[in-house]
C-alpha cells in the first residue's frame, strides 16, 4: 500500500524520508515540486498526483507536506486518513508538529513510523497502544534514561493490541480520578448583504479528557439528544445503545480523545450570535472611499462574546486605509489587501466600531468586487445549539470520579490550520 513517505517543508526541502518496501528514490518528488510550482497557493496543490510509475498522495498540515508514494490501486482516502493520523500522533507526542520538532525527535519519529505501518499497511495507530510501545519523550524521562540506561521502547506487546477494547490500556492508575468533557460548537454561516442568512449550520464536537483508574464503563446522556442530526463516534461508543436509547455508552480510552462529532442541521433555526452593520462605499471619480463597520451581540443568552477578530479582503484598487477603531487594534496589509481588526470582547453597552477612509489608486475606476467580511469569535459557557448533557454515570469501578463539563461556541469552518472562515458578510 504505502511505499514511502517524504516530509517536505514550505521552502521545498525534503527533510525526512521513510520507506516501508524497497527504497523509492527521492527524485519522485520532482513531480510534486512541479505541481507545487503550478499552484498559486500552497493549498491548491492537488492531493493526488499521478507520475509514470507511482502515485503521490499528499496532505498539507502545519505548513509541512506529507507526501506518500503509492504504487498501485488503493482507496485514496485510506492514505489521506492515515497521513492525518500520523500528524495527529506527532502532535500528541511532541505537542506541536513542526519541522523543528520532527528533526529534534527524529529517532522517535522513525520508531513511530516503523510501528504504525508494516509493509505499508497500518499496524498500530491507536495512540494508547503506541504509547505503550514507544514512550513519548519528556525531559524527565530523558534524564532518567541516561542515568539508568533504560529505554523508551516497550518490551511487551501492548495489551490493547489483542483485546476487543484496543483503545484502552490495562492497569491504568490515577490518584485523582477525573473525567472532563468539552462541548465545543462551531457555527458556520453565510449572510448576504441584506443581512439574511444564506446558510447556517452548527458543527459540534465533544472532546474528552478521561483519567480514570481501571476499566470504567461510562454512560453519557443528553437532555435533548434529538438535536443531533448526524453523528460520528470514536470506536469505543456502543452504536446499538445509541440507536436504541440515544445514550452514549463506552469504555473510554485513557487520556485525551474525541468522543463524538455531530452536526445540527440547518433545518433547525440556528441563532447567529453577532451582527454586523457596515457601510463601505466608493464614489465614482474620487480616490477616496468610506468604510464603516459596527459589531453587536445578538442571541447570546447573556454570555459575553470574546476574542472577536474581523478580517476582510479589500478590493485590489485600495491603496491604503486610514481607520479609527473604537476598541482593539487593526492592521491593513497593502500587499495582500487584507484588513484585520482584533476587537477583543464585545461590550453590549458600547458597541465596537471601525470607521475611516480608504484611499484608492488614482485614476482607477470604482472596484466592482464586493469585499467579504469574516468574523471569528468565542463564547464561553454556551453551546449555541442548546445541547445539554444530562448526566454522566460510571459503572465497573468503585471510586467516585470528579466530573466536569464545559461548553464553548466558536465561529469557524475547519479544525484545519487553514484560514478560518466564519461569518461571511457580503457587503457593498
Amino acid at each position, binding site marked *: *500500500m504505502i511505499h514511502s513517505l517524504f516530509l517536505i517543508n514550505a521552502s521545498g526541502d525534503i527533510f525526512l524520508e521513510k520507506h516501508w518496501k524497497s527504497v523509492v528514490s527521492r527524485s519522485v518528488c520532482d513531480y510534486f515540486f512541479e505541481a507545487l510550482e503550478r499552484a498559486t497557493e500552497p493549498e491548491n496543490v492537488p492531493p493526488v498526483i499521478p507520475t509514470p510509475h507511482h502515485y503521490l498522495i499528499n496532505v498539507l498540515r502545519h505548513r509541512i507536506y506529507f507526501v506518500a508514494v503509492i504504487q498501485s490501486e488503493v*482507496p485514496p482516502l485510506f492514505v489521506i*486518513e492515515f497521513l492525518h493520523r500520523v500528524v495527529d500522533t506527532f502532535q500528541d507526542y511532541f505537542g506541536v508538529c513542526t519541522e523543528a520538532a520532527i528533526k529534534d525527535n527524529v529517532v522517535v519519529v522513525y520508531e513511530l513510523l516503523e510501528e504504525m505501518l508494516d509493509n505499508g499497511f497500518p499496524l498500530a495507530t491507536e495512540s494508547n497502544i503506541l504509547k505503550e510501545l514507544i514512550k513519548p519523550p519528556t525531559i524527565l524521562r530523558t534524564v532518567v534514561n541516561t542515568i539508568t540506561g533504560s529505554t523508551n521502547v516497550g518490551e511487551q506487546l501492548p495489551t490493547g493490541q489483542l483485546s476487543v477494547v484496543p483503545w484502552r490500556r490495562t492497569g491504568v492508575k490515577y490518584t485523582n480520578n477525573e473525567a472532563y468533557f468539552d462541548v465545543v460548537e462551531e457555527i458556520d454561516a453565510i449572510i448576504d448583504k441584506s443581512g439574511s442568512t444564506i*446558510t447556517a449550520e452548527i458543527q459540534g464536537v465533544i472532546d474528552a479528557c478521561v483519567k480514570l483508574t481501571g476499566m470504567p464503563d461510562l454512560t453519557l446522556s443528553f437532555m435533548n439528544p434529538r438535536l443531533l442530526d448526524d453523528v460520528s463516534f470514536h470506536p469505543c461508543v456502543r452504536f446499538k445503545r445509541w440507536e436504541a436509547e440515544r445514550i452514549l455508552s463506552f469504555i473510554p480510552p485513557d487520556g485525551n480523545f474525541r468522543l463524538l462529532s455531530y452536526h445540527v442541521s440547518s433545518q433547525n433555526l440556528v441563532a447567529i450570535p453577532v451582527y454586523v452593520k457596515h457601510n463601505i462605499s466608493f464614489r465614482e471619480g474620487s480616490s477616496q472611499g468610506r468604510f464603516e463597520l459596527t459589531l453587536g451581540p445578538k442571541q447570546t443568552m447573556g454570555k459575553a462574546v470574546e476574542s472577536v477578530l474581523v478580517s476582510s479582503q479589500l478590493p485590489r484598487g485600495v491603496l491604503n486605509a486610514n481607520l479609527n477603531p473604537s476598541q482593539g487594534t487593526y492592521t491593513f496589509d497593502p500587499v495582500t489587501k487584507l484588513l484585520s481588526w482584533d476587537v477583543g470582547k464585545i461590550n453590549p453597552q458600547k458597541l465596537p466600531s471601525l470607521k475611516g477612509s480608504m484611499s484608492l489608486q488614482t485614476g482607477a475606476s470604482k472596484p466592482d468586487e464586493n469585499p467579504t467580511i469574516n468574523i471569528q469569535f468565542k463564547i464561553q459557557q454556551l453551546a449555541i445549539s442548546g445541547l445539554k448533557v444530562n448526566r454522566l454515570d460510571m459503572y465497573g469501578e468503585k471510586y467516585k470520579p470528579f466530573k466536569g463539563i464545559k461548553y464553548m461556541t466558536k465561529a469557524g469552518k475547519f479544525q484545519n490550520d487553514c484560514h478560518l472562515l466564519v461569518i461571511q458578510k457580503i457587503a457593498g
Partner: protein
Amino acid sequence: QIQSSIFNQRKAHSPGHVCKNILHVPVSGLLFGPWFLCRNEDLKEMLESNKESLKLEAMKRIVGLIAKGKNASELFPAVVKNVASKNIELKKLVYVYLVRYAEEQQDLALLSISTFQRALKDPNQLIRASALRVLSSIRVPIIVPIMMLAIKEAATDLSPYVRKTAAHAIQKLYSLDPDQKEHLIEVIEKLLKDKSTLVAGSVVMAFEEVCPDRIDLIHKNYRKLCNLLVDVEEWGQVVIIHMLTRYARTQFVSPWREDAVFDENSAKAFYDSEEERRVDQSKPYIMDPDHRLLLRNTKPLLQSRNTAVVMAVSQLYWHLAPKHELSIITKSLVRLLRSHREVQYIVLQNIATMSIQRKGMFEPFMKSFYVRSTDATHIKTLKLEILTNLANEANISTILREFQTYVKSQDKAFAAATIQAIGCCATNISEVTDTCLNGLVLLLSNRDETVVAESVVVIKKLLQTQPSQHSDIIKHMAKLFDNITVPMARASILWLMGEYCEHVPKIAPDVLRKMAKTFTDEEDIVKLQIVNLAAKLYLTNSKQTKLLTQYILNLGKYDQNYDIRDRTRFIRQLIVPNEKSGALSKYARRILMAPKPAPVLQSAFKDRDRFQLGTLSHTLNSQASGYLELSDWPAVAPDQSVRNVEVVEPVRLPCIYLQKNGNAVKVESRSESESGSESSSSESSSESGSELDSDSDSGTDQKKNTKPKPVQSKPFDAVSWPVCVSLQASSPVFVPETSHELLHRMTGKGLSAQYRFTRQPCIYGNSMVSLQLTLSNSTDQALENIHISEKSSTGQNIHRFNAIERLEPQASVTVSMGVDFNDSTQAANFQLCTKEDEFSVSIQPAVGELLLPITMSEADFTKEQGKLVGMNESSATITMTPENVSSQSVNRKVVSVANLGVIPSGQENIYRFSGKTVSSGSLVLVSVVLKDPDAVITINTEKTVMGSMLLRQVKTALTNSGP
C-alpha cells in the same frame, strides 16, 4: 553532494568527538577525504565499544542519517553485529537499519538470519512478531525458503498478533518471489479461516494482493467476515469492505430491477422457484439473505470517525444496495465535507459522479456545496461541478443567484469556471437558456478580461443551439469586439460571425474589413478564424468581400506560421475557382457552410462511474495499476449453498471471560474450536489470564505451572484415547447453550454460579467431563479468593479451577473444570468457597453428557451392533409426532439429548448415532428406525444402566413436539 553531506554530519556531531577522532584518522583514507572517513570511523568505534549507551547513541545518529536520505550503508558490518543485542531499543534501531540496507548488502545481511530464526521461537509474542517482520522485510532472494517456513509456522501461532504479522509477510514474500504464489495461497486459505478480528483485515489485504481472483476462497468465510466486520480495526474494515463489494457483484443478482419487490421473508419461495424464475422474468426480486447481511452489517460503519471507512461503506451501498436504500449514505458523505481539505477533495469527486446519476440524493443538501471564499481552487471547481449537476427547473434560480456572486470572485480562474457552469445549466435546462444568455451578455461589459473572454466562449457554444433567434446578441458582440483582447474570445466571435453571417449581413463584412487592417498583429488562433470568416463571406456575399478576401489570403500566404499558410492555400483552392481547382470547389459551400452540431456541454464526471467509487482510479479517471474491475451482476445467481458452513456452532474453549453489566468486555478468547488445538488451550488460558490482571498477582500460580511455551505442543492425538475399537473421535455435532444453576445468588450470599457442559474432550484428564463455570458477583463488594475446597465429599475426582483472587462487584468470570463422573449419573458434590463462606453445591449430569461422539462407517456400526446384543441391547417403540419425522429433526433431537456423533446413513429411514462413555470408553450405539407412524429406538452398550437411561431420554425427546 559529498561536501554537503559532510557539512551536515559535522553539524550533528559533538565537537568533543570530532577532536578525539581526528587523531585516529588513517592516512590511507584518500578516496573520500579525511572528514568523511573520520565520521564513519567514529560511529564504527562507538558501535564496537562495550557500552550499550554508546552503541545506542551511534545507532540514533545513523537513523538520523537514514531519515535525511544520506547513505550509511558502509557501516553495515558494524551495525549487523548488534542485531542480537539485549537492549530492545538498540535492537529495534538495528532492525530499521537492516531493512533499509539489506537489499544492497545481501551477503552480510545473511549473517543476521540465524538471530531472527532464534527470535521466532521466543516466548514473547512481540519479539516473535518483530523478528518475522524484519525477516520478511529483508529483500534477499536467497532466504525465500526460510521466509516461507517462518510464515507457515507463524500462521499457526497462538498469538493473533503474530498471525497478523504473518499475513503481512505473505505480501512481502509474494513481491520478492511471485513463484511462491501457490504455497502462499495455501497459507492465505488457512488464515482466512482465522476468527480473530486482528487478523481478518491483514489476511484480506494479502488475498487482494496475491490472489484476488480466487473468489472461491471467500465463500466459506463470507458470513464470518460480515459478522466480524464491526469489530475489525478500521483499516482492515476498508480493505474487507472493498473486497466484499467485488465479491457480492459476482455472487448475487442485481437488486436494481424496475419492478423489484423487496420481500426477504419469502426466501423459501426463492429457493423453490429457481426454474420458474428463469421462465418468468416478471417474478418479484427477492434479495439473497447473504446480500442483505452484508448491507445490514456495514450500515453502522457509516458512523465511523474514519473517513476512509465511511467512504468504503458509501461505495458499497452505491454498487450493491437497492436504489431506494441509497439515501442513507448521503448524510454521512456530506458530513465528511467538514473534514480536512484533502478528504473533501476525494469525497466531492465521488459525490460529483453520484450526482450525475442521482440528483435526488444530494439535492436537499445543496447548500453544503456552496463555495466559500477560503476553499482551495480544486475544491471550488468540484463544488461548481456538483451544483451544476444538481440544477433542475425548481432550484435553478437559487443556483444562478449563487453563481452570480461567484462570478465576482477575485479568484479569476474560478470566476471563469463559474461562467462555464452557467453555460452548462443553460443547455441542460431549456427554461433558463434565455436568462442565462442575457446574464452572460451582461458579463461582456465586465471589466475583467478573463470573465469577458470566458463569457464569449460560452455564449458561442450556447448560440450554436439556436442561432436564428439571437442575431441581436451577435450584433452586440460585434460591437464589443474592439474592446476584447483575449485571443480565444476574439476567435470565438469571428467564428460566430462567419457561421451566422446570413443573420448579420451588414455587420459581418465590416468586421472583416477591420480585421484585414489588423491581421498581421493578431494571434495565430485569431488569424485562422479571420481566414475562415473571409472564406465564408466570399461564398455568401462575394460582391462586397471579394477584394478583402483576396487581400487577406495574400497576407496569409506569407505568414510566418505554416499552419496559417497551409490553411490559406487550402481555402484559396477551395473557394476561388480556377482551372486547377478541379471538382472540389463545386462543393465549397457545402464544405464550409455545413450545419454543425452544437457542442454538448457535459460534466467531466459523466463516465467516471466505469470505475468503482472511492478508488484511486476513480480519482484519476484512468485505470491505476492493480485496479480490480467490478464485474457486472450475474444474470442468474451462482449456487448460494457454497457459503454454508458445516460447523454448527463455534465452541469456546475454557478461557477466562470478564463481564461487566452484561456489556461484554470480552478479553479475546483464542477459541479455535476445531478439534486439534485443544491441547494448547491450557497454555492460552493462562496467558490471557496473566495479561488480564497483570497488576494483581492472581495469576502467579498459573504462571508457575504453565509457563507459556512458544513451541507448539503436540496436537491432540485421537489414538491415545482408550477406545476399544480403533475409531476416530470427532468434534461434537451440537453444543447446547443452556446452562444450569449451581448456586443461586440468594443462597450464595450474592455469589451465583452456573455451569454448562462444553461437550469437548476434557483437557485435565481423559476420563473427565469438561464443564464451564460462570461465577458472578451480585453484591456490591468484591468477593475474594473464590475456589473449590480440597476435600471432596463424594468419590469423584475433580479438577478444580484456579482460585479467583478477586471478583469485582457486578462482574462475572468464566472458568473451566473437569469432573470424572465415572460413567454414572450420580451427582458430584463439592464445596464452593469464598474468603468468608462455604457453599455446598452439586452437579447432576444428564446421561447424554457422559458421552463423547465418535465417527465410524455404517459397516462398522452394524458389526459393532452385532457384538452388543442380548442384555446389552435395549429398545422401545414409540409413536412419532409428524413434525419429528424429517431427518433433520430426528438428528437434531438425538444429538441435543446426548453427545453423539451422526453416522451417515445409506437407508432413508434409519438413523444411527455413536459415541463412547467418557470414563471407560465403552461404545454406545443408538439407532432409530422409522416405520410410519412408529419408530423403534435401539441402544446397544455394555453399560446397561446408562443404556436404559439414555433410551428413556431419547424416547421423551422424540415424542415431544417442538424444537
